[in-house]
């Protein structure tokens, strides 16, 4: 925990906290060490036990650059505020200066733990604006669902792993990252990249599944069915784990709806609201799966929900593999489909040399078309749409406006982490300082998505 101020006057050997007088009161810079010493130093100086702790933005257990401003009285948090904006990268502004297809490269980097959801929400929006939603090939839609559910696993695994690490349960962390690595291996096999893949494109996918992908997916499902119960064995019945999570980060249904919380936070309050069921997209209405809920409204409930959702995701993935039929993965309209035939070249993944040789050597028109589509892009009729997908964190919505040009006129992402993080104050105030960490971990915010 640290403030933005540093001091060099205090010798390190005597205390881990340097003190400095300011007009606001005494400012301590704490950089690890024994909390008791700081508490003692504070009480020695005044009778008032009320201090303001500035946690972050650089702190391992704040999930990135989240800054928490806590007013604490002894060990009790009396007021909690979240400060964000430290990872703002202007993605929404940048999108207005690129073609519609280039946008996927940006949005995939927002919530970097759920790249396929960002891409899918964005592409569904572009397709709705174009009016080609029904023309997307089935194979592309099934692969989108497959990747989204695999991504739900990898995101929940990180949520559970980092949540465990913050409690000191490093085994949970090792397990979580071990299994997430299996997910990323499959992402790499299919898209060429572990993260930020820009694989889902307006109109379909960048390319088809490579050979061996189905076998690896089947292996993965088999492996995860064996591994997932380990989390249950390790945590669900563990008295220490239960004691730390139960009744911590409490937010009931009325609070969730008022604060707009969605995803596991809302479902832990007992409402089975899931966009995959209530407002289906990508054909989710045809898949057989359940939306788990708990009525405990607390961090333990959210942990158990994430575990169960991973089982459900495996179920959906199995159904996806069963219904994969050979076919195109890009819309038939050549005015929209990028003429991409990717191959691995000496400078990375790019257009295959054979394809380039073909269009450059045999067809002038194909070359012009390729050039126009890649540099200028396609035009999208004017209007606005809102599309939303159920990301592992909640409702990921995209509000998209087109003015009829080759670039988005305005794209706004309603990121679930951003909205859910507002619940920090409601979840933490009145609780203990140590429980703030657990409550924030149960929201599972990713600052890349919060700040965009």
């Amino acid at each position, binding site marked *: 925990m640290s403030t933005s101020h540093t001091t060099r006057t205090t010798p390190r050997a005597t205390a881990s906290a340097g003190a400095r007088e300011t007009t606001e009161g005494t400012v301590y810079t704490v950089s690890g060490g024994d909390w008791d010493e700081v508490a003692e130093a504070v009480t020695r100086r005044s009778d008032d036990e009320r201090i303001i702790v500035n946690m972050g933005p650089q702190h391992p257990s704040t999930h990135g650059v989240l800054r928490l401003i806590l007013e604490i009285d002894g060990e009790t948090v009396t007021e909690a505020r979240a400060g964000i904006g430290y990872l703002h990268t202007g993605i929404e502004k940048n999108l207005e200066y690129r073609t519609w297809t280039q946008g996927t490269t940006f949005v995939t980097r927002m919530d970097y733990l759920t790249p396929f959801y960002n891409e899918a929400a964005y592409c569904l929006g572009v397709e709705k604006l174009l009016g080609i939603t029904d023309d997307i090939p089935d194979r592309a839609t099934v692969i989108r669902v497959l990747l989204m559910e695999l991504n739900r696993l990898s995101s929940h695994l990180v949520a559970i792993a980092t949540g465990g690490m913050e409690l000191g349960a490093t085994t949970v962390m090792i397990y979580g990252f071990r299994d997430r690595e299996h997910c990323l291996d499959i992402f790499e096999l299919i898209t060429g990249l572990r993260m930020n893949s820009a694989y889902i494109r307006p109109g379909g996918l960048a390319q088809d599944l490579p050979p061996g992908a189905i076998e690896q997916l089947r292996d993965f499902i088999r492996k995860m069915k064996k591994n997932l119960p380990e989390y249950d064995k390790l945590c669900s019945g563990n008295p220490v784990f239960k004691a730390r999570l139960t009744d911590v980060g409490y937010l009931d249904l009325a609070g969730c709806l008022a604060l707009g919380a969605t995803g596991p936070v809302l479902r832990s309050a007992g409402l089975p609201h899931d966009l995959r069921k209530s407002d289906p997209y990508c054909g989710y209405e045809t898949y057989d799966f359940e939306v788990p809920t708990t009525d405990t409204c607390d961090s333990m409930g959210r942990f158990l929900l994430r575990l169960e959702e991973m089982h459900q995701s495996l179920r959906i993935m199995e159904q996806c593999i069963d219904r994969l039929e050979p076919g195109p993965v890009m819309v038939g309209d050549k005015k929209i489909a990028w003429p991409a035939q990717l191959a691995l070249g000496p400078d990375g993944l790019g257009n295959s040399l054979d394809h380039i040789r073909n269009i450059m050597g045999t067809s002038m028109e194909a070359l012009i078309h390729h050039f126009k589509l890649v540099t200028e892009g396609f035009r999208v009729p004017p209007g606005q749409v809102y599309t939303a997908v159920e990301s592992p964190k909640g409702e990921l919505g995209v509000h998209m406006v087109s003015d009829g040009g080759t670039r988005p006129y305005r794209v706004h992402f309603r990121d679930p982490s951003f909205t859910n*993080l507002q619940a920090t104050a409601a979840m933490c105030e009145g609780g203990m300082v140590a429980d703030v960490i657990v409550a924030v971990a149960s929201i599972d915010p990713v600052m890349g998505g919060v700040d965009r």
Partner: protein
Amino acid sequence: MSDDSERAGGVPAPRGNTGETIARRRGMFGANNGGDTSGYSGLRRTVRMPGASSRPYGGYFDEVADELEGALEEQGVDPETAIEKTVVDRDELTFHIARAYLPQVARTLRDDPALRFELCTGVSGVHNPADTGRELHAVYHLRSITHSRLIRLEVSVPDADPHIPSVVDIYPTNDWHERETFDFFGIVFDGHPALTRIMMPDDWQGFPQRKDYPLGGIPVEYKGAQIPAPDQRRSYS
């Protein structure tokens, strides 16, 4: 959609002449300063957004519109004044609301048992600098979990008077969303408990998501060639 775009030589055909004109563009390739040698300087394009729709709207839209208008009448508000325009486009329903009535409309949408839009997914801003008197738009999406419905509210205000009543006391979730829209567009949400910047530093000048705010960026050298910054590249208006 592809048929439309082919017909007009790459430019999508206007969807009827009823659309609302928000801008007129001329030329191409973004050659707006100095002599345009592109040969396209005579090109004119009118940007038309989908215009007002007439009944029946289709699906559940008629029911929502009826209930909302009825509920407003009961409260002594003339629906014609509160709802400036109703647009149905791409299976989505948009109510354009006069800004003074926004809180009352939002409260009605949330509380009326036949409407029950419990969840607000925040507010998004849009800047149309060429649409005089309606430059800034605040767009709200409301979701009814009870009835599985989704509607959109749109409020437009002039740049000279960018004030919209806050809906934070109706949808507390809009706290951060309104701060974000203020931060990026300079729309002032009256009645917000603490309207401060949220993404940009507190002392930041200007509103970054406005169209007249430059993107910035520097040219990059790649394999010996200068690649201009994204906002300096050719654009196809």
